[in-house]
């Protein structure tokens, strides 16, 4: 056997394995980078790392997590939009900050919703409106009346969508002043300390509900929360508004179908795994919820519309 024939055989074998792989299953050509749009150590980062670890274990691929903080994920998606759609770069972010920036200053953003192929959602953050347990009101209508009787009152928030919700409520003549805080914890602290009448809270408030220090006025999501099934949503209380911040995973647009399918199914397995679910439950007080590749896009389109309506009330 001469050298040439060896080469030919080797090449043929290589081609065969390659073709076989493409038929049976997509394999990444190198390590996959999962870019997280937030700084290391936060909940998005922790969940992202758990997903990466779970994917590695199940598929044998290398999945490397990289933090790209800035602008609530906008900095990361800006870079992701121009990455090669080879399935080796995916990004994880939160829907609300991205959508708000798309509506507010879409002309300045180098991407649109079409710049990405969507792979999965991980979970929906739960947002509540809370007040001190001894407050003289039990729902948002009561809060608005209390504000009217007291020359206005203050509500603490920590993200733009919450500000927009309150501004929409104020459209109907309510006098709620907005106190901006750095975190949900700080917002809850200002309620507990008696500095404000109510606050938005994303999980920090749950132990205070148990201890009887706080009560929940409303769910600010589209549906009620599992831990407080009797508290109505804002929609049920008469305001047709909500905010559903989803943690989701996307890749640059133009991903080949086999890669998209393989990544979506690997992510789906990882998100359904017990470790990831446990971390999500611990960090966000809610189960994982994966809408799937198509469902993620539908959710984003729907949310974009809601954000547009909310921002129309921004002034």
């Amino acid at each position: 056997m001469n050298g040439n024939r060896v080469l030919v055989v080797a090449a043929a074998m290589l081609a065969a394995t390659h073709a076989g792989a493409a038929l049976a299953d997509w394999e990444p050509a190198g390590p996959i980078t999962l870019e997280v749009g937030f700084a290391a150590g936060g909940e998005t980062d922790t969940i992202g790392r758990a997903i990466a670890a779970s994917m590695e274990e199940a598929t044998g691929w290398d999945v490397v997590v990289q933090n790209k903080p800035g602008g609530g994920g906008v900095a990361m998606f800006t870079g992701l939009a121009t990455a090669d759609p080879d399935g080796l770069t995916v990004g994880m972010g939160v829907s609300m900050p991205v959508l708000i920036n798309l509506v507010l200053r879409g002309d300045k953003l180098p991407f649109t919703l079409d710049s990405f192929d969507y792979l999965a959602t991980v979970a929906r953050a739960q947002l509540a409106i809370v007040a001190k347990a001894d407050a003289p009101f039990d729902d948002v209508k009561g809060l608005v009346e209390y504000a009217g009787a007291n020359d206005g009152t203050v509500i603490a928030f920590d993200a733009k969508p919450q500000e927009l919700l309150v501004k929409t409520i104020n459209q109907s003549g309510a006098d709620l002043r907005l106190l901006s805080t750095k975190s949900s914890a700080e917002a809850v602290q200002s309620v507990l300390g008696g500095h404000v009448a109510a606050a938005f809270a994303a999980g920090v408030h749950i132990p205070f509900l148990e201890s009887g220090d706080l009560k929940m006025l409303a769910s600010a999501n589209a549906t009620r929360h599992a831990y407080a099934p009797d508290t109505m949503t804002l929609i049920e209380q008469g305001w047709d508004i909500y905010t559903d911040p989803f943690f989701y995973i996307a890749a640059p647009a133009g991903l080949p179908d086999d890669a998209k399918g393989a990544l979506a199914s690997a992510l789906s397995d990882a998100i359904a795994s017990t470790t990831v679910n446990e971390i999500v439950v611990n960090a966000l007080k809610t189960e994982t919820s994966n809408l799937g590749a198509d469902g993620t896009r539908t959710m984003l389109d729907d949310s974009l519309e809601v954000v547009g309506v909310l921002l129309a009330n921004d002034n």
Partner: protein
Amino acid sequence: MVDLATILAGLGDAFSPINLLFVLGGVVLGQFVGALPGIGPVMAMAIAIPFTFVLDPLPAIAFLIGVNKGGLVGGAIPAVLINTPGTPDAAATALDGYPLSKRGKPLKATKMALYASVTGDTFSDIVLITVAAPLAVVALKTGPVEILALMIFAFSIIAGLVGDSIVKGVIATALGILCATIGLDPEHSTPRLYFGFFELYDGLPLAAVAIGMLVVAEILRRLAAMQGEMRPPLPRKDTQVAADRRVSLAEYWGCRFTMLRGAAIGTVLGALPGIGSTAAGFMSYAAAKQASKDPESFGKGNIHGIAATESANSAVVGANLIPLLTLGIPGSVSAALIISAFMIQGIQPGPLLFEQQGRLIYGLFGAMIMANLVNFWVGQLGLRFWVRVVRAPESIVFSTALLLCIVGVFMSTGGLFGVSIMLIAAAVGYVMHAFGYSVIIFIIAFFLGSRFELSLSQAMVILDGKPARLIEHPVALGLLLLALLSIYWLGVRAPRKQRQRNANG
């Protein structure tokens, strides 16, 4: 209330060999990354958190707190030895630590930093363990208006550091505040001064600016001063007599009021969210300088300057846990990381924590006290190591430091963008220093500027834009009055006395 059996069980957990091993590992790692310029304990904690998921809660949290405590000791070491603070907290440590080292007393300077750090840390841990619950109520009652007044009071004291030229001090402050306004505005999230870089939405990355200004600028200065020969960054003096290599009991005891004041400042600022250990270090330093009979000796190697800063910045760590454990409120970035570590273990810090997890909490308290002891012993060994490291030629020491800065900033800001910011900050810092503008003043204004803006806007909302409603906030009024007194005392009375002295002498 937690019963004695739970407390004993918790302490028993803390002293189990496996937990002690994690405490030791955390402290060693913390001191090491703290001492490396550019890679701080915050980053080490952030990277470690996802891995702590596989551990039991106690070793996981004890490990992270060990990293945090070790980092504050470690950060002082390069500040003292080569004038490049490993963490921004130690920026004020360099003010007196480095001159003392240059005078041939690096061991005395680093040891004073270590002793003061462990003293301040232990003080605030004891406060946490004994009176966390009442202090938490105080923290809760401290609303935005009170925080704003407290910050104004702190500024009135820190202003004493402004230096000889008030004009240059004001310019440095204005520049710091201007840089702090970059990014989303705190009220309506409108991006400001971002020039199309979405990376700047959250503001200039603190780590990149601090490392650029404090560390890389110093490296550039050393580079400019190099003359081609091989010499260590610190003049080697083998004639160091024994008294210059240690801190005597008399010297330590002489600093007791300075350290107590520092520990108290650190504990108060640590128990309240948002102000942080860097500000505590500077405030304590400025207060020590003003309380001193010999303020002229500050900045020239006065051990009180080291003791003041280190006792205050380390006291913040223990005090941060007061609002964290009792209310679930993080007082700083590292505290926020500890909360996420609790959360991924399925434990929500807050009002029910002591009831539901009493054993874990007392285990944690035991681990914290152990971490202080370990910090002391590891520090004793470690600082000898670092003093030796800086005997290497400065070309090696500083090029390694520069590399570490780049790697550290790359990792913490997620790319080369942060590195560019670091290099720009270094150039600005270099120029500022060359023209006699205080980089320290810039850093303080930059670090506290955005929090101050937020507090101001919060206070305006609470007061409904009516200053007269301050009447409803007597504590804030008291603090503002103190600020006025301090301005009179330091800005009017002290200079007048100084002039009288000069006239007489």
